[in-house]
């Protein structure tokens, strides 16, 4: 005698409280965030090994260090304008200028 076919298991359904916020009791809404899209090498500090040094002088001249230099505001303005025009950072511009003018 043939066995009767087993009754298919009822499928999973949404819980009745799925759209209810656990605290407010109101409907929930999603926050749409933008994905990180690409790897951008950064010149981060020594505490992160993600610092990929890309500036002109870094690879040739070793570890980067901070130096505070006082200069006229107008000169800083010019440096910023050059950096913007070239799509570089201020560090890149200053390093490039110094590398070209200092004795080897």
């Amino acid at each position: 005698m043939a066995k009767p076919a087993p009754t298919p298991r009822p499928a999973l359904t949404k819980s009745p409280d799925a759209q209810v916020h656990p605290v407010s009791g109101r409907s929930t809404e999603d926050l749409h965030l933008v994905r990180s899209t690409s790897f951008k090498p950064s010149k981060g500090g020594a505490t992160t090994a993600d610092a990929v040094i890309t500036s002109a002088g870094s690879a040739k001249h070793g570890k980067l260090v901070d130096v505070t230099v006082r200069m006229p505001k107008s000169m800083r303005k010019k440096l910023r304008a050059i950096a913007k025009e070239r799509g570089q950072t201020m560090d890149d511009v200053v390093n490039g200028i110094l590398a070209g003018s200092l004795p080897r």
Partner: protein
Amino acid sequence: MTPTVAVLSLKGGVGKSTVTLGLAGAAWARDLSVLVVDCDPQANATLSMDPAPFTFTLNDVLADGRPGIARDAIVPSGWGARVHVLPSEEALAHRDSAHDVASPARLRLSLTGVGDDYDLVLLDCPPALGQLTRNSLGAADLALVVTEPGFFALRGAAQAIQAIEAARGSINLGLKPAGIVVNRMRPNLNEHQYRLRELKAAYPHLLLEPIVPERSAVQQAQGAGLPVQAWPSPGARDVTEAFDDLLDALLAHAP
């Protein structure tokens, strides 16, 4: 037998999801099949694994509770065909109240037979000892505690160890502690070095090596919906190596 690992701490923000994702990524890199069950209503692991649009979540699974029903809610992640996720959503917090998920065996029941499809099952717990964490401890073979080298985090780790011991004596006799992972270590900080020594002294047999270093690549990869193992930066490589070794340590504990 496929190991099912609960990743927990009773302090938030120490990197439970990061460690879960790091281990899942290490398994992905070895072409192992892995299932991540997101037991945290914050759903960060779900977001970071970039699954295809899904209808059902762990909330629906636990509300249903039938043996094996979890299979209906599992979806492929964006990481590849062999990495699947049982997604979470904010409404999962409804299941964290004692009257709602009455039995700590509910998750174990709903996962019946599911583990056979995978090489590794990871349960990403919320940062509290509510019903969701109790259900995770009830469903797991191994419990992995995550901490960072800070005062509050170490206290959360100690509480998690106690919770594992309590679970072993009641809801899951087969549960074993897999160890303590130290995450977000910055070796140049004296406080981190001090807390690490403290942790080694307190739990010499549970502390797992290597220590996972703090790297911004981890957040970048999570934001991109990729395993950190696929993120092309030197920092990502450091973290990748650490998780690869930790996966070895974890699998060595597997039943």
